[in-house]
């Protein structure tokens, strides 16, 4: 694997590279939720919209499990970031 590929930033919100993701998958953190907890991937303002797919693909490559069988992790509300002031007024339920 060339060094350059390992340096690609996969999770832009948390600035996590492909190399770091591969390193932790190799240590046994091989579900999306475990990678999230140790590297914060998927916890940024975009909530994983920018990185989830690529990370699931890496897990699939490492574990040999088909993409469809890999747990995409927990999706937490709100679906889109909402301002505190809007929420305090009751938001748009």
């Amino acid at each position, binding site marked *: 694997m060339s060094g350059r590929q390992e340096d690609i930033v996969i999770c832009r919100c948390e600035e996590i590279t492909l190399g770091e993701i591969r390193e932790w998958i190799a240590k046994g953190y091989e579900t999306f939720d475990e990678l999230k907890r140790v590297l*914060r991937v998927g916890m940024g303002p975009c909530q994983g919209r920018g990185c989830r797919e690529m990370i699931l693909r890496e897990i699939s490559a490492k574990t040999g499990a088909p993409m469809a069988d890999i747990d995409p992790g927990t999706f937490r509300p709100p679906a889109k970031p909402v301002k505190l*002031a809007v929420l305090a007024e009751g938001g748009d339920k």
Partner: protein
Amino acid sequence: MTLERTADVVVIGAGVQGCSIAYNLAKMGVKDVVVLEKGTICSGSTGRCGAGIRAQWGTEMNCRFGLAAVEKFEQLHEELGMDCGLNQSGYLMVAYKESEFDQLQKSMKLQNSLGIDTRVVSYSEAREICPGLAADDAVGFTFHNRDGHADPFLTTFAYMEAAKRLGVTFHRFTEVTDVKTVSGRIAGVVTNRGEIDAPVVVNAAGGYSQIIANMAGVRIPNFSERHEIIITEPVEPGVCPPMLMSFSGNYYIQQRPHGSIIGGCSPEGHPEDYEMGSSWDFLEMMSRTFIKLLPRTKGVRVVRQWSGLYNMTPDRQPILCEADNVKGFFLSCGYSGHGFMFGPISGELLTQLIIGQEPWIPIDMLHYSRFERGELLVEPAVV
């Protein structure tokens, strides 16, 4: 990984408690320690918590536990070889009623007598400590600069990795479905992946500890309560460095090192259940608290909302002991919302009890038999 047939110790649950106990056992030379976790490591309350650490407590025992915990966290990186994200920006306690401020000062005297340097601070000093704060309706504040918070995931993983290096085995996706006993002694556990015989079993199952205790025929009065929490997008550092906490205000709010602000409170009506859903009511109420307390967060966005279980006991104090009717069955549960900070210290104390040493902080009053005797340990300082 196939499951062992036997072990010297089986630990049920891989939250901060289970991982700390496993590490401390191995460190003290106990061989064949096996940790069983029904989900993934840190998927229970630990991975959902506020991760605050404080020595500002209202009973002598909690002050001693709290101070010992602060001291442990201060050297945890070195001991475990992994950064646990410790951030010591202090806890700023906010009182809105005279009686509440009296109580804070009473607790402060106790803390000071035990070597905890808590002090009263003025509103202007409070605003220096917490630049975003608006609390002109508060009557007083106390502050302890060594309090703070750590990263709950990294702390738990650090314990797990250090335990693994000492030979401890961890099994994920392995659920204990029964606990075996033979004439008043523990005999082992039954799981969805087979049975393990063991002379010592530790119940560190967090919100599910009463279910595990039941399997062993041990009755504890614990119940689980859902608590919710929110986190914002990252904002400039220095808005709310300390943990802001108020008992009457019913909140705890703090800024994480990467800039996000996290906040929670006690739920209304205290939903007693195993559900971990999120509610609009909480989101709305917590958002109001944020804006009132930290007005400059008005335009800040909430990115995530979640919930986790508090494992409660009638006096909101933990259970840390060996069962008296089932020898070899140990319990570390019922932390009632403050079990993250106590993880490093209770793991050490329970290990001492298991290997037959005298725990260096006495824990006999943390036996569950206190509930039957009606000797409750009432702690005034909890949210």
